[in-house]
């Protein structure tokens, strides 16, 4: 399961608790309920009316806390570009890597992703892999290193990269989580 996506947003949505909004909203709703009762008290089934009113009042804190979060998110994201929005949503590491991939790899290039199965962070690696595939679409992902213009490595240390991939190309970005190798022999269509 995903561990970090949306956590930011979820936290933002959930962190709002009882606040002045609840009091104002409750005031408006209770005013409507009382007004309605005064107006139609002879024509309404009181049991059903009480039930519905309890339902409505019970919902107010949940609605208010949710919308406090939503309004907060709307303020945070206002005027941000797509990449900046990703920066807010994802880890800084991934954002920097996204920006690099976006700049470096042309839409006609192909890429191969290798995930280090033995990496400590392995639980998240699959999720990173899926995100990178998503983000790089429509660039074509290939099934072998030989067909690729770029190799993306997830969870490889520098010595491991040196041992396993140094012959394939030039390491142009390294972090403990993500690395990017540009292959030596580039097929047609790849950007220089």
């Amino acid at each position, binding site marked *: 399961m995903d561990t970090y996506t949306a956590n930011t947003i979820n936290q933002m949505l959930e962190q709002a608790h009882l606040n002045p909004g609840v009091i104002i909203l409750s005031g408006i709703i209770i005013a409507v309920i009382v007004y309605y009762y005064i107006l139609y008290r002879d024509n309404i089934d009181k049991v059903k009316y009480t039930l*519905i009113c309890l339902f409505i009042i019970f919902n107010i*804190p949940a609605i208010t806390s949710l919308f406090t979060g939503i309004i907060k998110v709307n303020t945070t994201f206002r005027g941000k570009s797509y990449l900046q929005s990703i920066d807010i949503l994802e880890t800084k590491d991934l954002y920097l890597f996204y920006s690099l991939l976006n700049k470096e790899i042309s839409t006609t290039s192909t890429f191969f992703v290798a995930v280090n199965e033995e990496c400590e962070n392995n639980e998240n690696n699959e999720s990173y892999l899926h995100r990178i595939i998503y983000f790089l679409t429509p660039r074509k992902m290939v099934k072998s290193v030989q067909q690729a213009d770029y190799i993306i490595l997830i969870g490889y240390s520098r010595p491991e990269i040196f041992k396993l991939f140094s012959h394939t190309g030039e390491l142009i970005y390294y972090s403990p989580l993500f690395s990017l190798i540009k292959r030596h022999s580039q097929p047609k269509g790849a950007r220089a």
Partner: protein
Amino acid sequence: MTDFLIGFFNMLLIVLAGFSLASWWLKDGLKIDKTLLFALSWVSGCVIIAITQFYLMLSGLLNISIIHGVLLLLIVISLYNNKTVYWAAMIEIKQYILTFRNFLRLHNSLQIILCVLILFFGFQILVFNAITPVWSYDGWLIWTIKAKLLHYNFLDIDFFKNKIYDFAKLDYPMLVPVLQAFITKLSPDFDERLAKFFFNMCFIIFGLILYNFIRNFFDRLFSLLLLFAILFSPFIVLNFISGYADAVLAKFYLFTIVVFYRFFNEKSPGLYYYIAFVTGFAGLMFSKNEGSIYVVGLVLFSLLYIRFYIDRKSQHIKYIILSAVVAFLLYLPWVVFIKHFNIANEVISGTNISLVSFTVFLSHFYMAAKTLIVNVMFDPQVSGALFYLLPITIYLAIQKNEFKNIFFFCGIFFFNLLLLLFVYALTPFDPALHVVSSANRVLMSMSPAIICFMIMTLSFRNNELSEIETAETC
């Protein structure tokens, strides 16, 4: 701004495409409820575009932009042939605007305050969808990735055979990605935020249908209050802003149930119901795999309902069976496609279901049911107070001998709930984790049945007053 206009234009095209289909069936004029007609236009438009695009894409014939030309042609032909219906629709729209103006001018301040409150909260949801990218895991990697590939004309049969994309749940129906791609299509680059416009429109339609239904049982002031409490419940809002297909499924389900409610009360149903049922059923099946279960429940319980509670049986039965058959025929090529290419089912991939022994099944079932009830249904932060109200409402309905409502609305809900629990119990995953991670979405998509049931049962006005007030417009 340009992207916004593109999104708006494409959504208008969906409504017009649906209306052009509906107008063939409404040659005598607009005799049905106008809100439902608008909802029908949107629902039919979604289904027509999704099905056409998807099958053209599979046949390899489609440069997806062609669909815009074809749709415009369809709309023009329909406009030429059914001028009366279009003209009547224009007059209705004008009347709606006038009614709204009168409404603002004449009605009491509490109604206006409630309207402002609903518009403000609704606006926040629309803004949220317009400025944040898709942020839920399933939203990105099941639905939007397919839309993105479709946008760049890269989604073809090879995609479904490519093991790299297994994580995108390739056996899931394609209505949502296809429509997201349709909305972004005229924009040069794919932007998730534009794709999420689709959910905005679905949210608006969901709200309109819900209000339309509530209005049958309550006066305007209380309808607005109830709409506010239900529509902005956390589990409804969170699904509409996260990019899950369950929100779309819920919209189709609510539409179909409301149409069923009207259908049962019709002595001689019009042709409108054919198109509403066909598009409703097809929309459910094409949105998510659960949709097929919902259709089975709806058909089964509606046939039993007609058998027990309606006098003129044959005509009603004919409508339901014929619509279900047509919807299934539309859906059949997708089933054949999935089977033909042996596209893995994500729930059971790599696991032999028969390995889950009966004892394990029972313990899974118990765990799933317990978690579902304690952690999802009765968690106020998830579903609000909706499920607290359900047992009391059923008790009140029994007291008033409203068994037919319990039979149909609660019947389909508990039928779906039971099947959901079976799925949780049969799969090899930890049931508690599985339920917590996904149940609120599924529960939300099946909730329209009980929402409608509670609204009907808890209508507290006496009949005379209700009749006078429901005669009001808007």
